[in-house]
Protein backbone atom coordinates (compact mmCIF):
# COMPACT_ATOMS: atom_id res chain seq x y z
CA UNK A 1 0.00 0.00 0.00
CA UNK A 2 1.21 3.44 -0.91
CA UNK A 3 0.87 4.88 2.56
CA UNK A 4 2.83 2.12 4.18
CA UNK A 5 5.76 2.49 1.86
CA UNK A 6 5.68 6.23 2.44
CA UNK A 7 5.74 5.65 6.18
CA UNK A 8 8.61 3.23 5.83
CA UNK A 9 10.64 5.92 4.21
CA UNK A 10 9.71 8.60 6.72
CA UNK A 11 10.27 6.24 9.64
CA UNK A 12 13.76 5.61 8.43
CA UNK A 13 14.29 9.26 7.82
CA UNK A 14 14.41 11.44 10.97
CA UNK A 15 17.99 11.51 12.15
CA UNK A 16 18.49 11.13 15.90
CA UNK A 17 18.99 14.84 16.63
CA UNK A 18 17.26 17.43 14.46
CA UNK A 19 19.66 20.04 13.10
CA UNK A 20 18.64 23.42 11.71
CA UNK A 21 18.35 23.67 7.94
CA UNK A 22 20.74 25.90 6.03
CA UNK A 23 19.59 29.49 5.68
CA UNK A 24 18.96 30.66 2.11
CA UNK A 25 21.91 32.76 1.02
CA UNK A 26 22.64 34.83 -2.03
CA UNK A 27 22.89 38.38 -3.25
CA UNK A 28 20.28 40.88 -2.13
CA UNK A 29 19.58 44.04 -4.05
CA UNK A 30 20.13 47.38 -2.38
CA UNK A 31 17.37 49.97 -2.51
CA UNK A 32 19.83 52.20 -4.37
CA UNK A 33 20.29 49.48 -7.03
CA UNK A 34 16.56 49.41 -7.62
CA UNK A 35 16.35 53.19 -7.77
CA UNK A 36 19.23 53.33 -10.26
CA UNK A 37 17.80 50.57 -12.44
CA UNK A 38 14.35 52.19 -12.44
CA UNK A 39 15.80 55.58 -13.32
CA UNK A 40 17.88 54.14 -16.17
CA UNK A 41 14.90 52.20 -17.51
CA UNK A 42 12.59 55.21 -17.44
CA UNK A 43 15.29 57.34 -19.02
CA UNK A 44 15.69 54.79 -21.83
CA UNK A 45 11.96 54.78 -22.58
CA UNK A 46 11.80 58.56 -22.66
CA UNK A 47 15.10 58.60 -24.57
CA UNK A 48 13.83 56.38 -27.38
CA UNK A 49 10.84 58.68 -27.68
CA UNK A 50 12.91 61.87 -27.50
CA UNK A 51 15.59 60.96 -30.05
CA UNK A 52 12.81 60.32 -32.56
CA UNK A 53 11.53 63.82 -32.02
CA UNK A 54 8.90 63.01 -29.39
CA UNK A 55 9.44 66.16 -27.36
CA UNK A 56 9.51 68.59 -30.28
CA UNK A 57 6.55 66.83 -31.89
CA UNK A 58 4.49 67.59 -28.79
CA UNK A 59 4.24 71.23 -29.75
CA UNK A 60 4.70 70.86 -33.54
CA UNK A 61 1.06 70.62 -34.47
CA UNK A 62 -2.15 69.03 -33.36
CA UNK A 63 -1.66 65.76 -35.19
CA UNK A 64 1.99 65.28 -34.32
CA UNK A 65 1.35 66.30 -30.73
CA UNK A 66 -1.27 63.63 -30.19
CA UNK A 67 0.85 61.09 -32.03
CA UNK A 68 3.71 61.92 -29.73
CA UNK A 69 1.50 61.39 -26.67
CA UNK A 70 0.36 58.10 -28.17
CA UNK A 71 3.96 57.02 -28.63
CA UNK A 72 5.22 57.84 -25.14
CA UNK A 73 2.13 56.47 -23.39
CA UNK A 74 2.47 53.26 -25.40
CA UNK A 75 6.13 52.92 -24.48
CA UNK A 76 5.36 53.59 -20.82
CA UNK A 77 2.44 51.14 -20.76
CA UNK A 78 4.61 48.37 -22.19
CA UNK A 79 7.46 49.41 -19.95
CA UNK A 80 5.36 49.17 -16.79
CA UNK A 81 3.82 45.89 -17.95
CA UNK A 82 7.23 44.33 -18.57
CA UNK A 83 8.47 45.39 -15.13
CA UNK A 84 5.36 43.84 -13.61
CA UNK A 85 6.20 40.59 -15.39
CA UNK A 86 9.77 40.74 -14.11
CA UNK A 87 8.37 40.79 -10.56
CA UNK A 88 6.18 37.77 -11.31
CA UNK A 89 9.37 35.91 -12.21
CA UNK A 90 10.18 36.30 -8.49
CA UNK A 91 13.75 37.55 -8.86
CA UNK A 92 15.58 36.10 -5.88
CA UNK A 93 17.86 39.08 -5.12
CA UNK A 94 14.80 41.33 -4.78
CA UNK A 95 12.76 38.71 -2.90
CA UNK A 96 15.55 38.23 -0.35
CA UNK A 97 15.46 41.95 0.37
CA UNK A 98 11.76 42.76 0.33
CA UNK A 99 9.79 39.51 0.49
CA UNK A 100 7.55 37.94 -2.12
CA UNK A 101 4.42 39.64 -0.80
CA UNK A 102 5.92 43.06 -1.59
CA UNK A 103 6.80 41.87 -5.09
CA UNK A 104 3.16 41.01 -5.69
CA UNK A 105 1.98 44.34 -4.29
CA UNK A 106 4.36 46.17 -6.65
CA UNK A 107 3.17 43.95 -9.47
CA UNK A 108 -0.30 45.29 -8.79
CA UNK A 109 0.88 48.91 -8.73
CA UNK A 110 2.76 48.47 -12.00
CA UNK A 111 -0.27 46.82 -13.59
CA UNK A 112 -2.42 49.74 -12.52
CA UNK A 113 0.12 52.13 -14.03
CA UNK A 114 0.10 50.08 -17.22
CA UNK A 115 -3.69 50.16 -17.47
CA UNK A 116 -3.67 53.92 -16.95
CA UNK A 117 -0.98 54.52 -19.59
CA UNK A 118 -2.80 52.18 -21.96
CA UNK A 119 -5.98 54.21 -21.54
CA UNK A 120 -4.08 57.37 -22.49
CA UNK A 121 -2.40 55.53 -25.38
CA UNK A 122 -5.69 54.37 -26.87
CA UNK A 123 -7.47 57.71 -26.40
CA UNK A 124 -4.56 59.75 -27.78
CA UNK A 125 -4.19 57.32 -30.68
CA UNK A 126 -7.79 57.77 -31.74
CA UNK A 127 -7.47 61.56 -31.51
CA UNK A 128 -4.19 61.51 -33.44
CA UNK A 129 -5.73 59.60 -36.35
CA UNK A 130 -9.03 61.46 -36.28
CA UNK A 131 -8.25 63.98 -39.04
CA UNK A 132 -10.29 61.77 -41.35
CA UNK A 133 -13.11 61.57 -38.83
CA UNK A 134 -13.41 59.54 -35.66
CA UNK A 135 -15.32 56.73 -37.36
CA UNK A 136 -12.55 56.24 -39.84
CA UNK A 137 -9.87 56.47 -37.16
CA UNK A 138 -11.57 53.85 -35.05
CA UNK A 139 -12.01 51.63 -38.11
CA UNK A 140 -8.32 51.98 -38.97
CA UNK A 141 -7.12 51.43 -35.45
CA UNK A 142 -9.35 48.44 -34.73
CA UNK A 143 -8.16 46.35 -37.60
CA UNK A 144 -8.31 48.08 -40.96
CA UNK A 145 -4.67 49.05 -40.50
CA UNK A 146 -2.21 46.18 -40.42
CA UNK A 147 -1.38 44.71 -37.01
CA UNK A 148 -3.95 46.88 -35.22
CA UNK A 149 -6.56 44.15 -34.67
CA UNK A 150 -4.19 42.41 -32.26
CA UNK A 151 -3.49 45.67 -30.48
CA UNK A 152 -7.23 46.32 -30.13
CA UNK A 153 -8.04 42.90 -28.71
CA UNK A 154 -4.98 43.13 -26.44
CA UNK A 155 -6.18 46.47 -25.07
CA UNK A 156 -9.69 45.07 -24.57
CA UNK A 157 -8.27 42.14 -22.63
CA UNK A 158 -6.24 44.43 -20.39
CA UNK A 159 -9.42 46.47 -19.92
CA UNK A 160 -11.41 43.40 -18.83
CA UNK A 161 -8.66 42.32 -16.43
CA UNK A 162 -8.39 45.83 -15.00
CA UNK A 163 -12.13 46.05 -14.34
CA UNK A 164 -12.16 42.61 -12.72
CA UNK A 165 -9.20 43.61 -10.55
CA UNK A 166 -10.99 46.63 -9.09
CA UNK A 167 -11.54 45.90 -5.42
CA UNK A 168 -15.33 46.01 -5.67
CA UNK A 169 -15.37 43.53 -8.59
CA UNK A 170 -12.59 41.37 -7.24
CA UNK A 171 -14.63 40.51 -4.14
CA UNK A 172 -17.46 39.08 -6.24
CA UNK A 173 -15.46 36.43 -8.07
CA UNK A 174 -13.43 33.59 -6.65
CA UNK A 175 -9.70 34.04 -6.42
CA UNK A 176 -8.99 31.20 -8.81
CA UNK A 177 -11.41 32.40 -11.50
CA UNK A 178 -9.85 35.85 -11.29
CA UNK A 179 -6.35 34.38 -11.34
CA UNK A 180 -6.92 32.46 -14.57
CA UNK A 181 -8.65 35.39 -16.25
CA UNK A 182 -5.75 37.63 -15.31
CA UNK A 183 -3.34 35.20 -16.98
CA UNK A 184 -4.88 36.18 -20.34
CA UNK A 185 -2.71 39.28 -20.00
CA UNK A 186 0.03 37.11 -21.51
CA UNK A 187 -2.15 36.74 -24.60
CA UNK A 188 -2.73 40.49 -24.63
CA UNK A 189 1.03 41.11 -24.55
CA UNK A 190 1.64 38.63 -27.34
CA UNK A 191 -1.01 39.82 -29.80
CA UNK A 192 -0.30 43.50 -29.33
CA UNK A 193 3.46 43.14 -29.70
CA UNK A 194 3.60 43.32 -33.50
CA UNK A 195 1.92 46.72 -33.70
CA UNK A 196 4.55 48.12 -31.36
CA UNK A 197 7.43 47.33 -33.68
CA UNK A 198 5.66 47.93 -37.00
CA UNK A 199 3.34 50.87 -36.41
CA UNK A 200 5.09 52.51 -33.45
CA UNK A 201 7.18 55.35 -34.87
CA UNK A 202 9.95 55.01 -32.30
CA UNK A 203 10.53 51.33 -32.92
CA UNK A 204 9.44 50.82 -36.54
CA UNK A 205 11.85 53.39 -37.89
CA UNK A 206 14.89 52.59 -35.78
CA UNK A 207 16.56 49.22 -36.24
CA UNK A 208 18.60 49.46 -33.06
CA UNK A 209 15.62 50.44 -30.91
CA UNK A 210 13.51 47.72 -32.50
CA UNK A 211 16.01 44.98 -31.77
CA UNK A 212 16.59 46.28 -28.25
CA UNK A 213 12.82 46.17 -27.69
CA UNK A 214 12.56 42.63 -29.05
CA UNK A 215 15.54 41.64 -26.89
CA UNK A 216 13.90 43.11 -23.80
CA UNK A 217 10.76 41.06 -24.41
CA UNK A 218 12.75 37.88 -24.97
CA UNK A 219 14.73 38.52 -21.77
CA UNK A 220 11.55 39.00 -19.74
CA UNK A 221 10.00 35.88 -21.27
CA UNK A 222 13.10 33.85 -20.39
CA UNK A 223 13.12 35.27 -16.85
CA UNK A 224 9.47 34.31 -16.48
CA UNK A 225 9.92 30.80 -17.80
CA UNK A 226 12.94 30.27 -15.60
CA UNK A 227 11.84 32.07 -12.45
CA UNK A 228 8.22 31.03 -12.44
CA UNK A 229 7.98 27.68 -14.17
CA UNK A 230 11.58 26.50 -13.91
CA UNK A 231 11.61 26.74 -10.12
CA UNK A 232 8.24 25.02 -9.94
CA UNK A 233 9.53 22.21 -12.16
CA UNK A 234 12.59 21.81 -9.94
CA UNK A 235 10.44 21.81 -6.80
CA UNK A 236 8.22 19.18 -8.42
CA UNK A 237 11.17 16.83 -8.76
CA UNK A 238 11.77 16.81 -5.00
CA UNK A 239 8.42 16.81 -3.24
CA UNK A 240 8.18 16.30 0.51
CA UNK A 241 5.64 14.06 2.20
CA UNK A 242 3.12 14.67 4.95
CA UNK A 243 4.69 13.06 8.02
CA UNK A 244 2.07 14.00 10.59
CA UNK A 245 -1.18 15.90 10.98
CA UNK A 246 -1.89 17.08 14.56
CA UNK A 247 -5.13 18.87 15.50
CA UNK A 248 -4.41 22.15 17.29
CA UNK A 249 -7.95 23.48 17.71
CA UNK A 250 -11.43 22.80 16.37
CA UNK A 251 -10.49 24.17 12.94
CA UNK A 252 -6.69 24.18 12.89
CA UNK A 253 -4.09 21.47 12.41
CA UNK A 254 -0.34 21.45 12.27
CA UNK A 255 1.19 19.67 9.34
CA UNK A 256 4.75 18.35 9.33
CA UNK A 257 6.45 17.67 6.02
CA UNK A 258 9.72 15.89 5.51
CA UNK A 259 11.50 13.61 3.11
CA UNK A 260 14.92 12.70 1.74
CA UNK A 261 15.20 16.00 -0.13
CA UNK A 262 14.53 18.14 2.93
CA UNK A 263 18.21 18.65 3.71
CA UNK A 264 18.71 20.40 0.34
CA UNK A 265 15.99 22.91 1.13
CA UNK A 266 17.14 26.15 2.75
CA UNK A 267 14.72 27.65 5.26
CA UNK A 268 14.70 29.92 8.28
CA UNK A 269 12.27 30.65 11.08
CA UNK A 270 9.74 33.31 10.09
CA UNK A 271 9.65 32.28 6.44
CA UNK A 272 6.83 30.79 4.43
CA UNK A 273 6.36 28.37 1.57
CA UNK A 274 3.89 27.73 -1.21
CA UNK A 275 2.46 24.27 -0.72
CA UNK A 276 0.97 22.25 -3.53
CA UNK A 277 -0.29 18.85 -2.33
CA UNK A 278 -0.38 16.29 -5.13
CA UNK A 279 -4.05 15.54 -4.60
CA UNK A 280 -7.01 15.90 -6.86
CA UNK A 281 -8.20 19.51 -6.86
CA UNK A 282 -5.14 20.78 -5.02
CA UNK A 283 -2.14 20.10 -7.27
CA UNK A 284 -2.73 23.01 -9.64
CA UNK A 285 -2.43 25.78 -7.13
CA UNK A 286 0.18 26.74 -4.56
CA UNK A 287 -1.09 27.91 -1.17
CA UNK A 288 1.04 30.06 1.12
CA UNK A 289 1.71 28.82 4.65
CA UNK A 290 4.08 30.11 7.31
CA UNK A 291 6.42 27.82 9.16
CA UNK A 292 5.09 27.33 12.68
CA UNK A 293 8.33 25.88 14.06
CA UNK A 294 11.96 26.59 13.32
CA UNK A 295 12.79 24.41 10.31
CA UNK A 296 15.06 21.48 11.04
CA UNK A 297 16.09 18.18 9.55
CA UNK A 298 13.16 16.80 11.50
CA UNK A 299 10.79 18.51 9.12
CA UNK A 300 8.92 21.64 8.18
CA UNK A 301 5.91 22.32 10.40
CA UNK A 302 3.06 24.46 9.11
CA UNK A 303 -0.16 25.47 10.80
CA UNK A 304 -3.25 25.25 8.62
CA UNK A 305 -6.58 26.78 9.54
CA UNK A 306 -9.70 25.54 7.78
CA UNK A 307 -11.06 28.63 6.08
CA UNK A 308 -13.16 26.69 3.61
CA UNK A 309 -12.29 25.85 0.01
CA UNK A 310 -8.76 24.54 -0.48
CA UNK A 311 -7.58 25.04 3.12
CA UNK A 312 -10.32 22.62 4.25
CA UNK A 313 -8.80 19.88 2.14
CA UNK A 314 -5.30 20.89 3.25
CA UNK A 315 -6.28 20.22 6.87
CA UNK A 316 -7.36 16.68 5.96
CA UNK A 317 -4.39 15.45 3.96
CA UNK A 318 -3.58 11.81 4.65
CA UNK A 319 -0.13 11.06 6.02
CA UNK A 320 2.20 10.20 3.16
CA UNK A 321 0.70 12.65 0.64
CA UNK A 322 3.37 14.16 -1.56
CA UNK A 323 3.53 17.96 -1.41
CA UNK A 324 5.46 20.19 -3.80
CA UNK A 325 7.17 22.85 -1.69
CA UNK A 326 8.17 26.17 -3.27
CA UNK A 327 10.21 28.57 -1.23
CA UNK A 328 11.39 29.75 1.15
CA UNK A 329 9.91 33.24 0.89
CA UNK A 330 9.82 36.10 3.36
CA UNK A 331 12.38 38.34 5.01
CA UNK A 332 11.27 38.62 8.66
CA UNK A 333 13.91 36.16 9.85
CA UNK A 334 15.89 36.11 13.12
CA UNK A 335 18.95 37.55 11.38
CA UNK A 336 16.89 40.50 10.15
CA UNK A 337 15.78 41.23 13.73
CA UNK A 338 19.25 41.10 15.31
CA UNK A 339 19.23 41.48 19.07
CA UNK A 340 16.35 43.94 19.30
CA UNK A 341 13.63 43.59 21.89
CA UNK A 342 10.53 42.39 20.09
CA UNK A 343 6.80 42.89 20.35
CA UNK A 344 4.60 40.59 18.28
CA UNK A 345 1.01 41.36 17.38
CA UNK A 346 -0.66 38.27 16.01
CA UNK A 347 -4.04 36.89 15.12
CA UNK A 348 -5.41 33.85 13.30
CA UNK A 349 -2.78 31.67 11.64
CA UNK A 350 -0.39 34.64 11.88
CA UNK A 351 0.56 33.05 15.19
CA UNK A 352 2.52 30.41 13.23
CA UNK A 353 5.01 33.06 12.18
CA UNK A 354 5.44 34.18 15.81
CA UNK A 355 5.85 30.63 17.01
CA UNK A 356 8.72 29.82 14.63
CA UNK A 357 10.52 33.13 15.20
CA UNK A 358 10.34 32.83 19.02
CA UNK A 359 12.22 29.57 18.81
CA UNK A 360 15.25 31.28 17.29
CA UNK A 361 15.25 34.45 19.40
CA UNK A 362 17.61 34.77 22.35
CA UNK A 363 17.27 36.16 25.88
CA UNK A 364 17.90 39.73 24.79
CA UNK A 365 14.65 39.82 22.80
CA UNK A 366 12.40 39.69 25.93
CA UNK A 367 9.50 38.98 23.55
CA UNK A 368 5.99 40.23 24.27
CA UNK A 369 3.25 38.57 22.23
CA UNK A 370 -0.14 40.28 21.90
CA UNK A 371 -2.34 37.43 20.73
CA UNK A 372 -5.73 38.45 19.37
CA UNK A 373 -8.46 35.81 19.01
CA UNK A 374 -12.24 35.69 18.95
CA UNK A 375 -12.53 33.18 21.77
CA UNK A 376 -10.53 30.68 23.75
CA UNK A 377 -11.33 27.90 21.30
CA UNK A 378 -9.56 29.77 18.50
CA UNK A 379 -6.24 29.95 20.31
CA UNK A 380 -3.57 27.67 18.85
CA UNK A 381 -0.03 26.94 20.02
CA UNK A 382 -0.74 28.97 23.20
CA UNK A 383 1.25 26.74 25.56
CA UNK A 384 4.16 26.60 23.14
CA UNK A 385 4.16 30.39 22.90
CA UNK A 386 4.01 30.77 26.69
CA UNK A 387 6.86 28.32 27.25
CA UNK A 388 9.05 29.96 24.62
CA UNK A 389 8.35 33.45 26.01
CA UNK A 390 9.04 32.41 29.60
CA UNK A 391 12.40 30.99 28.57
CA UNK A 392 13.32 34.36 27.03
CA UNK A 393 12.09 36.66 29.75
CA UNK A 394 8.96 37.64 27.88
CA UNK A 395 5.20 37.04 28.14
CA UNK A 396 2.05 36.38 26.16
CA UNK A 397 -0.97 38.69 26.47
CA UNK A 398 -4.18 37.25 25.10
CA UNK A 399 -6.90 39.58 23.82
CA UNK A 400 -10.21 37.76 23.49
CA UNK A 401 -13.52 38.96 22.11
CA UNK A 402 -15.33 39.42 18.85
CA UNK A 403 -14.45 42.55 16.92
CA UNK A 404 -18.06 43.74 17.26
CA UNK A 405 -17.86 43.41 21.05
CA UNK A 406 -14.56 45.27 21.15
CA UNK A 407 -15.94 48.04 18.96
CA UNK A 408 -15.30 51.42 20.46
CA UNK A 409 -12.16 50.33 22.26
CA UNK A 410 -9.60 49.46 19.64
CA UNK A 411 -7.26 46.87 21.18
CA UNK A 412 -4.42 48.22 19.04
CA UNK A 413 -4.91 51.92 19.74
CA UNK A 414 -1.68 53.67 20.72
CA UNK A 415 -2.77 54.06 24.37
CA UNK A 416 -3.77 50.42 24.70
CA UNK A 417 -0.48 49.29 23.18
CA UNK A 418 1.61 51.56 25.44
CA UNK A 419 -0.28 50.32 28.48
CA UNK A 420 0.29 46.68 27.57
CA UNK A 421 3.93 47.18 26.61
CA UNK A 422 5.45 50.12 28.51
CA UNK A 423 8.79 50.00 26.62
CA UNK A 424 7.02 49.79 23.26
CA UNK A 425 9.12 52.51 21.65
CA UNK A 426 12.35 50.63 22.36
CA UNK A 427 11.06 47.56 20.57
CA UNK A 428 10.91 46.21 17.06
CA UNK A 429 7.34 45.29 16.16
CA UNK A 430 6.14 42.39 14.03
CA UNK A 431 2.50 42.17 13.00
CA UNK A 432 1.11 39.03 11.41
CA UNK A 433 -2.38 37.84 10.71
CA UNK A 434 -5.39 38.94 8.66
CA UNK A 435 -5.04 42.18 6.74
CA UNK A 436 -7.43 44.13 8.98
CA UNK A 437 -5.44 43.15 12.07
CA UNK A 438 -2.11 44.03 10.49
CA UNK A 439 -3.38 47.41 9.33
CA UNK A 440 -4.92 48.22 12.73
CA UNK A 441 -1.72 47.17 14.49
CA UNK A 442 0.42 49.21 12.14
CA UNK A 443 -1.66 52.34 12.70
CA UNK A 444 -1.55 51.91 16.47
CA UNK A 445 2.20 51.30 16.50
CA UNK A 446 2.93 54.38 14.40
CA UNK A 447 0.65 56.49 16.62
CA UNK A 448 2.49 55.14 19.65
CA UNK A 449 5.76 56.42 18.22
CA UNK A 450 7.36 53.23 16.88
CA UNK A 451 9.42 54.22 13.82
CA UNK A 452 7.96 52.67 10.68
CA UNK A 453 11.28 51.05 9.71
CA UNK A 454 11.03 48.98 12.89
CA UNK A 455 7.52 47.72 12.09
CA UNK A 456 7.66 44.48 10.10
CA UNK A 457 4.70 42.83 8.50
CA UNK A 458 4.33 40.30 5.76
CA UNK A 459 1.17 39.04 4.21
CA UNK A 460 1.29 36.06 1.94
CA UNK A 461 -1.32 37.54 -0.27
CA UNK A 462 -4.61 35.89 0.56
Amino acid at each position, binding site marked *: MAHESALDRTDAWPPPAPAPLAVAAGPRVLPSDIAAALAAYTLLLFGVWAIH*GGASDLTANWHQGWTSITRISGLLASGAGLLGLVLVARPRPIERRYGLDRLFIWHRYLSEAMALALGVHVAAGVVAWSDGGYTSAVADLT*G*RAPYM*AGATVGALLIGVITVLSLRSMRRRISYE*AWYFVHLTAYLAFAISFSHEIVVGTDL*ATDTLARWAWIGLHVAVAVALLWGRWGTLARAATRPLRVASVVPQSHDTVSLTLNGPDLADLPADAGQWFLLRPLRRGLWWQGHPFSLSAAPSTFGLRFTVKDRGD*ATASMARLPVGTRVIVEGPYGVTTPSALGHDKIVFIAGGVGVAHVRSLLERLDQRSEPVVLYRARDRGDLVHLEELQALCRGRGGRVLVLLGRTSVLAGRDPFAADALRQAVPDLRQRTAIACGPESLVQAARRGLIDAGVPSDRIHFEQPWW
Partner: protein
Amino acid sequence: MTSSPRPASLARKALPALVLTGTSIGLLTQLDRAGHASPNGGLAVPGTTATPSTRAPSTTSPSGAASGLGRSAANPPTTTPPASAVPATPTSCTNNPVSGPAIMTRFGPVQVTAQLNDDGTLCDITTATGPSDDRRSMMINTRALPVLRLRALQAGGTGFQAVTGATLTSQGYRASLQAILDA
Protein backbone atom coordinates in the same frame (compact mmCIF):
# COMPACT_ATOMS: atom_id res chain seq x y z
CA MET B 1 -13.43 8.03 6.27
CA THR B 2 -14.16 11.68 6.61
CA SER B 3 -16.13 13.05 3.73
CA SER B 4 -14.02 16.02 2.76
CA PRO B 5 -15.73 18.71 0.70
CA ARG B 6 -14.44 18.42 -2.83
CA PRO B 7 -12.45 21.47 -3.84
CA ALA B 8 -13.74 23.29 -6.87
CA SER B 9 -12.37 21.64 -9.97
CA LEU B 10 -9.68 23.18 -12.10
CA ALA B 11 -11.86 23.04 -15.17
CA ARG B 12 -14.65 25.08 -13.59
CA LYS B 13 -12.29 27.72 -12.23
CA ALA B 14 -10.49 28.03 -15.54
CA LEU B 15 -13.68 28.26 -17.61
CA PRO B 16 -14.07 32.07 -17.56
CA ALA B 17 -10.47 32.49 -18.68
CA LEU B 18 -10.89 29.95 -21.48
CA VAL B 19 -14.08 31.66 -22.66
CA LEU B 20 -12.29 35.01 -22.64
CA THR B 21 -9.36 33.58 -24.60
CA GLY B 22 -11.68 32.03 -27.18
CA THR B 23 -13.65 35.27 -27.52
CA SER B 24 -10.43 37.22 -27.98
CA ILE B 25 -9.15 34.99 -30.74
CA GLY B 26 -12.53 35.06 -32.46
CA LEU B 27 -12.65 38.84 -32.21
CA LEU B 28 -9.10 39.05 -33.51
CA THR B 29 -9.94 37.16 -36.70
CA GLN B 30 -13.12 39.22 -37.16
CA LEU B 31 -11.41 42.56 -36.67
CA ASP B 32 -8.33 41.95 -38.76
CA ARG B 33 -9.23 43.24 -42.18
CA ALA B 34 -5.66 44.08 -43.10
CA GLY B 35 -4.31 40.59 -43.38
CA HIS B 36 -4.56 40.22 -47.16
CA ALA B 37 -1.81 41.79 -49.17
CA SER B 38 -3.40 44.35 -51.42
CA PRO B 39 -1.91 47.35 -53.18
CA ASN B 40 -3.35 49.67 -50.61
CA GLY B 41 -2.13 47.50 -47.76
CA GLY B 42 -5.65 46.83 -46.59
CA LEU B 43 -6.05 50.43 -45.61
CA ALA B 44 -9.37 51.34 -47.07
CA VAL B 45 -10.00 54.84 -48.22
CA PRO B 46 -12.66 56.56 -46.13
CA GLY B 47 -15.97 55.75 -47.70
CA THR B 48 -14.76 52.50 -49.17
CA THR B 49 -17.14 50.47 -47.12
CA ALA B 50 -20.02 52.18 -48.86
CA THR B 51 -18.61 51.41 -52.30
CA PRO B 52 -17.29 47.91 -52.24
CA SER B 53 -16.38 48.11 -55.90
CA THR B 54 -13.35 50.25 -55.07
CA ARG B 55 -12.01 47.48 -52.92
CA ALA B 56 -12.69 44.64 -55.28
CA PRO B 57 -9.96 45.45 -57.81
CA SER B 58 -7.45 45.72 -55.02
CA THR B 59 -8.01 42.26 -53.74
CA THR B 60 -7.82 40.77 -57.21
CA SER B 61 -4.23 41.87 -57.57
CA PRO B 62 -2.67 40.63 -54.36
CA SER B 63 0.83 40.61 -55.83
CA GLY B 64 0.84 44.41 -55.94
CA ALA B 65 2.29 45.01 -52.50
CA ALA B 66 4.82 42.25 -52.78
CA SER B 67 6.19 43.37 -56.11
CA GLY B 68 6.10 46.94 -54.89
CA LEU B 69 8.69 46.06 -52.30
CA GLY B 70 11.21 45.34 -55.00
CA ARG B 71 10.71 48.64 -56.72
CA SER B 72 12.58 51.79 -56.02
CA ALA B 73 10.41 54.33 -54.33
CA ALA B 74 12.08 56.93 -56.49
CA ASN B 75 10.66 55.30 -59.59
CA PRO B 76 7.29 57.00 -59.57
CA PRO B 77 5.32 55.60 -62.49
CA THR B 78 5.49 52.04 -61.25
CA THR B 79 4.27 52.89 -57.76
CA THR B 80 1.00 54.13 -59.19
CA PRO B 81 -1.77 51.64 -58.56
CA PRO B 82 -4.22 50.73 -61.31
CA ALA B 83 -6.40 53.68 -62.20
CA SER B 84 -9.45 51.47 -61.79
CA ALA B 85 -8.94 51.71 -58.03
CA VAL B 86 -10.42 55.21 -58.21
CA PRO B 87 -13.46 55.03 -60.41
CA ALA B 88 -14.04 58.78 -60.13
CA THR B 89 -10.74 59.47 -61.84
CA PRO B 90 -10.87 60.05 -65.58
CA THR B 91 -8.73 57.57 -67.47
CA SER B 92 -6.64 60.31 -69.06
CA CYS B 93 -5.45 63.65 -67.79
CA THR B 94 -4.45 65.96 -70.60
CA ASN B 95 -2.75 68.86 -68.83
CA ASN B 96 0.98 68.93 -68.19
CA PRO B 97 2.14 67.48 -64.90
CA VAL B 98 3.23 70.04 -62.29
CA SER B 99 5.86 69.12 -59.74
CA GLY B 100 5.54 70.17 -56.15
CA PRO B 101 8.48 70.96 -53.91
CA ALA B 102 10.41 68.12 -52.30
CA ILE B 103 9.43 68.18 -48.64
CA MET B 104 12.10 66.91 -46.31
CA THR B 105 10.97 64.49 -43.68
CA ARG B 106 13.08 62.68 -41.17
CA PHE B 107 13.17 59.70 -43.50
CA GLY B 108 13.98 61.52 -46.70
CA PRO B 109 12.31 63.82 -49.22
CA VAL B 110 8.74 63.46 -50.38
CA GLN B 111 7.78 65.04 -53.67
CA VAL B 112 4.61 64.66 -55.70
CA THR B 113 3.69 65.56 -59.26
CA ALA B 114 0.09 66.40 -60.03
CA GLN B 115 -1.97 66.88 -63.14
CA LEU B 116 -4.75 69.38 -62.72
CA ASN B 117 -7.99 69.69 -64.67
CA ASP B 118 -8.80 72.91 -66.48
CA ASP B 119 -10.86 74.12 -63.54
CA GLY B 120 -7.87 73.65 -61.21
CA THR B 121 -9.16 70.50 -59.55
CA LEU B 122 -6.99 67.44 -59.09
CA CYS B 123 -6.90 64.94 -61.94
CA ASP B 124 -4.08 62.61 -61.01
CA ILE B 125 -1.07 62.44 -58.71
CA THR B 126 2.17 60.55 -59.01
CA THR B 127 4.87 60.28 -56.41
CA ALA B 128 8.08 61.77 -57.78
CA THR B 129 10.15 60.91 -54.72
CA GLY B 130 9.32 58.91 -51.64
CA PRO B 131 11.49 58.60 -48.58
CA SER B 132 13.67 55.55 -48.87
CA ASP B 133 16.38 55.88 -46.29
CA ASP B 134 15.98 52.34 -45.08
CA ARG B 135 14.10 49.14 -45.68
CA ARG B 136 11.45 50.09 -43.16
CA SER B 137 10.59 53.32 -44.91
CA MET B 138 10.32 51.59 -48.23
CA MET B 139 7.95 49.08 -46.76
CA ILE B 140 5.85 51.83 -45.25
CA ASN B 141 5.86 53.83 -48.43
CA THR B 142 5.09 51.13 -50.91
CA ARG B 143 2.03 50.60 -48.76
CA ALA B 144 1.33 54.19 -47.83
CA LEU B 145 1.95 56.10 -51.09
CA PRO B 146 -0.80 54.38 -53.12
CA VAL B 147 -3.19 54.94 -50.24
CA LEU B 148 -2.24 58.59 -50.01
CA ARG B 149 -2.87 59.00 -53.74
CA LEU B 150 -6.31 57.41 -53.41
CA ARG B 151 -7.22 59.52 -50.42
CA ALA B 152 -5.98 62.74 -52.01
CA LEU B 153 -7.91 62.09 -55.19
CA GLN B 154 -11.07 61.24 -53.29
CA ALA B 155 -10.70 64.31 -51.10
CA GLY B 156 -9.87 66.40 -54.15
CA GLY B 157 -7.05 68.05 -52.22
CA THR B 158 -5.06 67.81 -49.03
CA GLY B 159 -7.97 67.42 -46.61
CA PHE B 160 -7.43 63.70 -46.21
CA GLN B 161 -6.53 61.47 -43.35
CA ALA B 162 -2.93 60.48 -42.72
CA VAL B 163 -2.04 56.85 -43.23
CA THR B 164 -1.61 54.98 -39.96
CA GLY B 165 2.05 54.25 -39.42
CA ALA B 166 3.26 56.66 -42.09
CA THR B 167 2.54 59.97 -40.44
CA LEU B 168 5.57 61.88 -41.62
CA THR B 169 5.25 60.66 -45.18
CA SER B 170 1.60 61.68 -45.12
CA GLN B 171 2.54 65.14 -43.95
CA GLY B 172 5.22 65.49 -46.62
CA TYR B 173 2.78 64.29 -49.24
CA ARG B 174 0.16 66.81 -48.14
CA ALA B 175 2.64 69.68 -48.07
CA SER B 176 4.03 68.95 -51.53
CA LEU B 177 0.54 68.61 -52.99
CA GLN B 178 -0.71 71.74 -51.24
CA ALA B 179 2.10 73.73 -52.86
CA ILE B 180 0.92 72.61 -56.31
CA LEU B 181 -2.70 73.50 -55.54
CA ASP B 182 -1.68 76.88 -54.12
CA ALA B 183 0.43 77.75 -57.15
